């Protein structure tokens, strides 16, 4: 099982590995994690990056596969950031829909998402 997970992670990693040198731009880590089926929010992605960067001497632009792999494998094994079930998302939308009309306008959504 672990081997399979590692293969999956490696594949996803390679898709974003522009220079084929087993490193990936740090800004794309979010993409990779999410395309592996996880739903972290931004703060959680940052946490993840910190964990990955712990071993690296100069944390910075590029994340090497060797660093990323063990951390990500744990994430998948522990089922962290697991997908949000649909009904929960539905509730989330309903919570924002003050007028209960079944939809929210773009402006409202933007307003809510950009408020701290």
């Amino acid at each position: 099982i672990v081997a399979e997970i590692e293969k999956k992670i490696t594949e996803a990693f390679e898709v974003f590995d522009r220079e084929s040198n087993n490193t990936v731009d740090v800004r794309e880590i979010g993409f990779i994690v999410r395309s592996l089926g996880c739903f972290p929010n931004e703060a959680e992605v940052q946490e993840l990056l910190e964990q990955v960067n712990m071993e690296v001497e100069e944390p910075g632009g590029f994340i090497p596969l060797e660093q990323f792999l063990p951390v990500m494998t744990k994430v998948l094994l522990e089922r962290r950031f697991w997908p949000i079930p649909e009904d929960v998302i539905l509730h989330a939308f309903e919570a924002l829909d003050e007028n209960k009309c079944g939809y929210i306008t773009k402006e409202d959504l933007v307003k809510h998402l950009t408020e701290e």
Partner: protein
Amino acid sequence: AFKAAVLIQQWYRRYVARLEMRRRCTWRIFQSIEYACEQDQIKLHNFFSYLMDQFTPSSSKERDFISRMFVSGESYKEAELEKCCDYESIEVPDSYTGPRLSFPLLPDHATALLEAFKQKQQLHARYVLNLLHETRKHLKQLPNISHVSTCYSEEVTVCGDLHGQLDDLFLIFYKNGLPSPSKSYVFNGDFVDRGKQSLEILVILFSFLLIYPKEVHLNRGNHEDHMVNLRYGFTKEVMQKYKVHGKKILRMFQNVFCWLPLATLIDQKVLIIHGGISDTTDLNVLEKIQRDKFISVLRMKKRKESSRKPEIQTVNGESKSDSEAAGNEAAPRFSLQPQSAQAPSTANRLEFSRWLRQTVQEQIDTCRRMVDISESEPEELTYSSMVSLKDVDEPCWTRQEEWKQVLDILWSDPMPQEGCRENKVRGGGCYFGPDVTEKFLEKYSLQFLIRSHECKQEGYEFCHNRKVLTIFSASNYYEIGSNRGAYVKLGPDLIPHFVQYQANKTAHMLTMTQRQGIPVALISRVEESAFRALREKLFAHTSALISAFKAYDGDNTGRITLSNWATAVESVLRLGLPWRMLRPQLVRSTEDGMLEYKSWLDDLAMEQRSQEHIQSSLLEVIYRNRSNLETIFRIIDRDHSGLISFEEFQQTWKLFSSHMNIELTDDGINDLVRSIDFNKDGNIDFNEFLEAFRLVKQCP
């Protein structure tokens, strides 16, 4: 409420990430299939080498047949060319409403051509040939490396691969203006193949070349090569558009292509070549070679390799009294021209080796003369001395060296790692690293390189620390919406300014919104296309896949794990794709992580609509090798008539199947043919044959 917002954001981010992943996977699929296709080309050439090396013609007919395969594409002497591609005798009927050209060409002619092509008109064959003659005359005077200076016209515009996509050329002219005394252009090769309007592009480019010779510059690309054209569509396009004169036109093009300059230098600071460089690229050598000797850069190597074998035979004293030599029907088509680009056919081995020794001897003599070595070498050439010809004298550039110089320029690709290694994916040229670039630029005091040859999503891309710029001008190359095209403008400061575009309105609109979010419609459509191509490839390898799957299914349950599925598929197709990521799109139904592979393959087969009465394995082989088959057929059909005789067809099939290890009896071949309506006086319209298996569609 805040929590709700965060949740939505999470969900949305994940959605975007999935889309981005899909987009990249799609891109990877297209690229790997494209390069695998080029790899097929290598296989085809291996096939030819195999023929040369292994196949012993058992009858004069077969020998004739093979020799014909190789003599297709001879270099034409000046007078011959003029005679057989004469245009003056071609009458243009009054009913012809297209543009009429007269030489010397004027700007009005160019505008007329542009307008005519926009209206989908066709230029009359007479004018095409006339244009090609004039173009050839002009190109012959040009040096191998064109020189451009930004002090004459303020800006130079450099365009990359166009690949027969006329709409992109129109878009470039629309956005940037037509070539003129104040607007210089450099077109960096690959004008033809794949797209359907290669001919029109060439006519336009050649016209502007003649009208504004100081401002318009063309570089040769790896597709300006008739061997490549046979496979990738240009040959077909010309024959379809010019049914009567197509042959002549193709011959002229073949000749004109090898007169195209190899490189362009701007202000002595920026070098523009189609492919790239290698660690042995030498501009001084490139400047001096006779570029028209390289009719097809792909064929040189083969000839060199194959020329060794017969040589050994002679040396070993086996004077093979070729019993059929005397009564040889085919006149041995060889000529003892010292600088001939053609090896004679192997129809007559004795003659062949005689010619070979002569040529090689001449080369050695030339070298000796250059270094003044006394003639103490033995007269008979041995195998080892042939090999060490390269080591003989540094300044003595053998044909092999020159050929490599040209090949590297036209076929190489940059790579992120340092060093320089063989480009096995394409089968020619090499992969060159940033250190090679650095050394090269330093050696010739250059600032950077501009090259094309590789499709880039944004139409251009820098690498090697901004020292190498790839510029690609064919938008939507793989599929509508797959990529933008671009051109680059350089002023006296030599700072590149880019203009991007996409030649399809809907795709253009979608690209704009790509900046804000990723439109699903666009991705889905391109993705569909990619997966269709991928499923086809999978189907073509059915037998190999079944064997691979069975290896993981020891208990013969008919099922394997998805993990093993991925490994097996990669081992068969070797495309380097992320199969686990792609699996959901390729495999519909799974049960607890296991796949019933037989039914999955059956589903794939159903999609491909096979013919029932032909064995499916045969169909598979044909399918997988259809591009190769088509190319071979086209070579056999020397007069491009679209017909080959039944015997030729049988011969081709025999050779092909023996090479591919297919068991097929004569009856089998007959059945195959009978299932297709052929009978045109004992000739086979092979387009019909290929069409019957839906093989006419080209490789993506």
